[in-house]
């Protein structure tokens, strides 16, 4: 299984509004893959389709070898434990403190001891660069950047193979954003992760992405490494990367 995600001829419609028409792309194992494109082109929608939050109207999508069109509930639940999702604003559960937010899946899906849960939670907090004292705090008591990191720690808690990031650097200051890029690269090294992310951040795109797809005009107008993409003739690509070429 070389491709962790394979989308073929995806069609998405909201009523009469067609969002994707015959969209094709694939994500290789171990790479950091970007979904780029102008706002409103359906990047986040596509990502939601990949993580079974939203249904598409046509085509086939395979995630980690599972065909999402005819997936059983049991298989879907298994799949959900093999990926981690970081939402744009962290989406931490506000009634739980950071520790319990991260420990939730461990307690729900495994029977490991509380001592080991504590070890795992502490370790994940450390790798995303949060101090241990954050554990006791509630999501409303920490800053947006910390919430994102805690959300990332929660996404990583089951040691997933696949990580989805929705605008991971948006809303962060430039220094934190670059730190976040480094963090993503480091995580990929350490955990053999494949990462799919929606992003607008040019620095982040240059620093982290191996390959990317540009979504425009309801479909993928360019897919490949950044060099291939930049050489594609498309209005969005030209304006987006303008002045960035060396």
């Amino acid at each position, binding site marked *: 299984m070389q491709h962790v995600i394979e989308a073929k001829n995806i069609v998405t419609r909201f009523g009469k509004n067609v969002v994707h028409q015959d969209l094709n792309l694939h994500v290789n194992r171990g790479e950091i893959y970007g979904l780029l494109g102008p706002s409103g082109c359906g990047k986040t929608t596509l990502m939601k389709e990949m993580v079974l939050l939203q249904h598409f109207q046509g085509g086939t999508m395979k995630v980690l070898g599972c065909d999402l069109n005819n997936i059983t509930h049991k298989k879907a639940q298994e799949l959900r434990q093999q990926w981690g999702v970081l939402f744009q604003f962290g989406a931490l559960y*506000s009634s739980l403190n950071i520790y319990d937010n991260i420990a939730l899946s461990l307690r729900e899906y495994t029977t490991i001891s509380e001592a*080991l849960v504590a070890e795992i939670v502490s*370790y994940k907090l450390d790798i995303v660069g949060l101090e241990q004292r954050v554990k006791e705090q509630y999501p*409303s008591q920490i800053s947006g950047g910390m919430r994102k990191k805690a959300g990332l720690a929660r996404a990583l808690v089951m040691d997933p193979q696949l990580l989805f990031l929705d605008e991971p650097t948006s809303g962060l200051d430039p220094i934190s954003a670059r730190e976040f890029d480094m963090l993503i690269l480091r995580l990929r090294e*350490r955990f053999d992760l494949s990462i799919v992310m929606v992003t607008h951040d040019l620095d982040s795109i240059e620093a982290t992405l191996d390959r990317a797809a540009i979504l425009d005009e309801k479909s993928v107008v360019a897919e490949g490494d950044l060099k291939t993409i930049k050489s594609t003739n498309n209005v969005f690509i030209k304006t987006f990367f303008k002045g960035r070429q060396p």
Partner: protein
Amino acid sequence: MFSFNGKTLSLHAKVQGDTVAIVINGMMNVKSIASIEPLLQQLLTHPLPSKRFEWHLQEVTHFDSAAALLLYMFEKKARSLGATCKFYTQTHHQNIIDAVYHRNYESGSVTDHRLNAVAAIGKTAVAKYRSFKDFLAFVGELFSALLIYILNPKSIRFKEIYYAIEESSINALGIIALTTFLIGVVLAYQSSVQLKMYGANIFIVDMLGISVLRELAPLIAAIVIAGRSGSAFAAQIGVMKITEELDAMKTMGFDPYLFLVLPRIIALMIMMPLIIFFADVMAMLGGMVVASIELGISAQLFLDRFNEAVAMKHFFIGISKGPFFGFLIAAIGIFRGLMVENDTRSIGINTTKSVVEAIFMVIICDAIFSIIYTNIGI
């Protein structure tokens, strides 16, 4: 010594001379290690089977950080008991172990900050006191905003008031009609049984008329409106606070008290008497239906008797409570909305509180009215 064969991994431990050899095959990940964790605990019980543990993990196919942390914990405990561990692993699994060992943090769980009973009572008392002070501040702001309305009638947001009237009152008429009609039916039905025994059938009109007009219709209407519209105010304003809409309004120079708070309060104060009137009509209708079926009192007779037996004052006493109930429900709902803090849980808590407090205050208010009216002899 012992063996374990699971679906995805197997573990064999045996004593070889002065060492314990632990051989693990298969997948060692967060899902599978739960099955071997208790076995490893057993190995470290007193007296130790040996002072030396050798881990043979070369055949492990999948290895994640949770597994590495399990080994870390084992080694740490073994070391504290004076034993040593040696791991034989594949190189990239060893890297994961090394990453876990390389630490500059103190791991641990969160401490439970539950308060003892006395401290909890104290904390609640202080919170109640603060919330009371906040409510006083809210009422103060409310009246200063009202002053602006009175001094400058142009600033009254009629459009907002109309909108609030429709949302919180007109749309509630259906449920008000249903509940009060049923209350009328139930009351008449229950009392008809008793009245029949004395042959005092006609007194059902007196009984229903006075109890419904004076007490029941206003109370039931207020309770329904508190549950339906007061809670909506709290949730709506609470969400606006979380999404920073209230702050946006303030920075643009729109005082939320003039734009959001007063229109809603005025709307309910205007509408509550009308809702009570509507509730009166529906409850009496329900009573009339039952009276005619159960006691054979025709609608004509019912209305004639109603005219004679039920004085106008009862109707006006009921209606007069309307603006006060309306004020309490709207003010408490909005106050609770404004008390929402920056997390979603607090919306739920405050919405619940808005309903509970509004109903409680309505009943207190009703009791006060009851005392006042009795003392002045009406």
